[in-house]
């Protein structure tokens, strides 16, 4: 099965979803928003359809979708509260179109909205039976991919630092033990691609992507910006805007005042290692050197195990 198989079927499905009723010709056109081995997302008029990763647990996805549907101030509301018919054995969900963050205008990144939305999510009541947040599992998956890439390539000087930094993490951050503490509702994979304005083009900012949503350690959701800041990539001003908004909205992942790093350290280390592993695996596959941004992650991994 290749990912190309999914597109025509998903396109037919979204056309039907966007124009319910008797089939009529339409001139809307369908745009492919994402097409990767684990995700295909297409847009037709104001409707978006997502084919989830092969092997997605349909029951867990249904619970995650229902969770999002119950939090319309946090998550983009799904068009249907249950996953639709399968495409190539992959569940499909339907969403209204929202305007994403402009990737060419980093100055317009909504750091305050991101912080406030996460705080709201982390304060939401947890419904019994909610699946686990998949952050640590994704980090472990990135390490599996790195091991595959390393097995297929000549030794790389950056690899030992990444592998040692991973080994130095506590078992829960490597998805080898249950997450500690009071489990909180978490997004599980926050980055700037996970925010849209709805209704398009200038409605309120909302979170998208329920694939990793679940209960876990809430600092995980702050940890990617924290990692970028620690690695010297995100400016102190942007990091401060994000963290201040999170605290102002009563987010429970970090203390209201003072140094937040006691709570952030482990998840930020895990996400630094995860990102380093992903980019190192890509560089190995493409047989290209790491650039300075990628190297800054490797350097941070090296410093973690020097301490």
């Amino acid at each position, binding site marked *: 099965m290749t990912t190309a198989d999914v597109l025509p079927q998903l396109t037919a499905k979204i056309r039907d979803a966007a124009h319910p009723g008797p089939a009529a010709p339409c001139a809307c056109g369908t745009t492919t928003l994402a097409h990767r081995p684990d995700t295909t997302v297409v847009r037709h008029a104001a409707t978006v359809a997502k084919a989830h990763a092969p092997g997605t647990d349909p029951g867990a996805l249904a619970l995650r979708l229902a969770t999002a549907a119950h939090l319309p101030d946090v998550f983009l509301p799904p068009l249907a509260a249950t996953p639709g018919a399968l495409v190539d054995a992959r569940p499909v969900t339907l969403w209204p179109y929202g305007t994403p*963050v402009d*990737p*060419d205008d*980093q*100055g317009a*990144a909504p750091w305050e909205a991101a912080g406030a939305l996460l705080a709201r999510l982390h304060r939401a009541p947890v419904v019994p039976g909610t699946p686990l947040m998949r952050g640590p599992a*994704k980090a472990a998956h990135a390490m599996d991919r790195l091991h595959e890439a390393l097995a297929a390539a000549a030794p790389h000087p950056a690899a030992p630092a990444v592998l040692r930094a991973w080994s130095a993490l506590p078992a829960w951050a490597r998805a080898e033990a249950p997450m500690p503490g009071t489990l909180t509702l978490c997004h599980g*994979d926050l*980055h*700037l*691609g996970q925010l849209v304005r709805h209704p398009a083009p200038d409605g309120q900012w909302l979170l998208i992507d329920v694939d990793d949503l679940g209960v876990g350690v809430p600092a995980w959701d702050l940890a990617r910006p924290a990692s*970028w*800041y*620690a*690695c*010297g*990539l*995100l*400016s*102190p*001003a*942007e*990091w*401060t805007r994000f*963290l201040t908004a999170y605290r102002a909205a009563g987010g429970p992942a970090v203390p209201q005042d003072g*140094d*937040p*790093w006691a709570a*952030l*350290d482990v998840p*930020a*280390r895990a996400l630094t290692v995860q*990102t380093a592993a*992903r*980019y190192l695996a890509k560089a190995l596959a493409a047989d290209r050197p790491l*650039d*300075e*941004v*990628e190297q*800054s992650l490797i*350097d*941070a991994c090296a*410093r*973690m195990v*020097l*301490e």
Partner: protein
Amino acid sequence: MHCPKCHAPMHTYNRSGVQIEQCSGCRGIFLDYGELEALTQLEAQWAKPVPPAPQAYPAPPAPAWGAPHHGGGHHGGHGHHGGHHGNKSWAHMLFSS
């Protein structure tokens, strides 16, 4: 404490209010976490007696494994830090899992 390099005893000295350890044998210097940044900041203050303050943000706390320019050595928020706007992999990273 003993020097990690030549194992001679190390003695504590005070340099501009910062405690540093120097080896009595090889004269090597040991700095605790934050001390290099403290010295760098003092040096910067010496070089620029009237520092301009164009940024309202003081440098927020960062972990020990963070990039080395964190801490006291941060000059007005316009260092190397966050200076990757336009870098292709940074732009990609902001939007990727």
